[in-house]
């Protein structure tokens, strides 16, 4: 049976702007992936628990509140604590270039800023998955 890419799309933090996350979630679904969508106000603990229980290949976080330098490292750490560093953590939102570089150094995957097309996200995940196998 063909193995489908499983992605968790989550929206951590306190802001309520989930349009971006929803658009990405449905674009990934349309691209044939299995997407777990958890909605707003997710804590890093909930995100990682969901990722483990669902055994996802990747986690996509949408952060528009400016909390990216706190949340991404926290999720990375929790994944590591649970021995699931194999799960790709990527994301999108309003993230300054220098922060993006720093986060990528820490081990976060690609971060998509405003204006990115959904196709870029789909292609990125498909390529990553192909190379992982």
């Amino acid at each position, binding site marked *: 049976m063909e193995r489908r890419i499983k992605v968790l799309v989550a929206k951590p933090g306190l802001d309520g702007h989930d349009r971006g996350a929803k658009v990405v979630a449905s674009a990934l*679904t349309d691209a044939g992936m299995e*997407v*777990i969508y*958890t909605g707003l106000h997710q804590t890093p*603990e909930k995100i990682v628990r969901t990722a483990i*229980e669902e055994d996802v290949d990747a986690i996509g976080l949408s952060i528009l509140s400016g909390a990216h330098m706190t949340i991404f490292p926290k999720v990375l750490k929790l994944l590591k604590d649970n021995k*699931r560093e194999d799960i790709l953590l990527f994301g999108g939102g309003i993230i300054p270039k220098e922060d993006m570089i720093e986060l990528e150094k820490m081990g976060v995957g690609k971060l998509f800023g405003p204006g990115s097309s959904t196709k870029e996200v789909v292609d990125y995940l498909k390529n990553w998955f192909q190379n992982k196998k």
Partner: protein
Amino acid sequence: MDIENIFQKFQKRDKNSLSRMITLVDNEDPYGIEFLKRFYTKRNDSTVRIGITGPPGVGKSSLLNKLVENFAKNYSFTSIVAVDPSSPFTGGSLLGDRLRMDNIYKFENLFTRSVASRGSLGGLSSSTENILQVLEIFKSDIILVETVGVGQSELDVMEVTDMVIVVLVPESGDSIQALKSGIMEIGDIFVVNKSDREGSERVVQYLNSSLKMKKEGKDFIPPVISVSAKEGKNIDKLYVEIENVKNFFIEKGIIARKKSLRKKKEVRDILRDIFIKSIDIELKNMENKKDLSPYEIAEKIFQKIDFKISEDIWKEG
């Protein structure tokens, strides 16, 4: 991969191993099937599987979100399997049951897994039975199976579970007539959710009277309960009913009978799988027989077919 090692981890309640094993059986990976074979007898024999079904939008996930608290407090381990549809066009699936299930994060003795129905015609994925067996090997006391309430799923959920809760809403009134033959026959408990809305009492009465007529002379008439998942109303009462029905079913041997029927069905499904896969291999060599009718081809295949029960049969397709 060392499945013995995974089993050791199961006994320590390691959710990471559980979730990875579920992925393997969901994908019909040979390791997953080997695991099911090797540890079949290690299943918790007294696990009770409870199905929750009903039309889309009646609040199955919200109701489950309330009920899990009762289960988490009363049992040592409860699993939740939520099935959502896959697109027949792209194969993709948007699994959103967790949106309404915030309570699952409050308890460590709960495990939730979303499953895409994939190609299956009914509301359940064809690997659901395997996933449930893995959860039994993990020694879940209760498994709650939430299904897509469309099409054939009613029948599917009845086959893989020990008892079924059918969820409706006050607005279901008019449509119950139409649902009668499907949903009305499989429910062991009927719930009218959203009782904060108008018309719920009427639906409860209607359900009660039609169930009484249908089940006349039988020693079990499914209870009907109106609840409001939103307001948390009557959730405890529903939980008590679930326990009552469950204990009655255990006492009367109904669950044991269901389990044995289910096993037969599963054997049949596996055999069908083996046959179809073997037939497909033969068919590949038979492509250009323009001069033969399908019947003649079928007879030829039947005469020479070699049904293979080997490890690779699970890798095909």
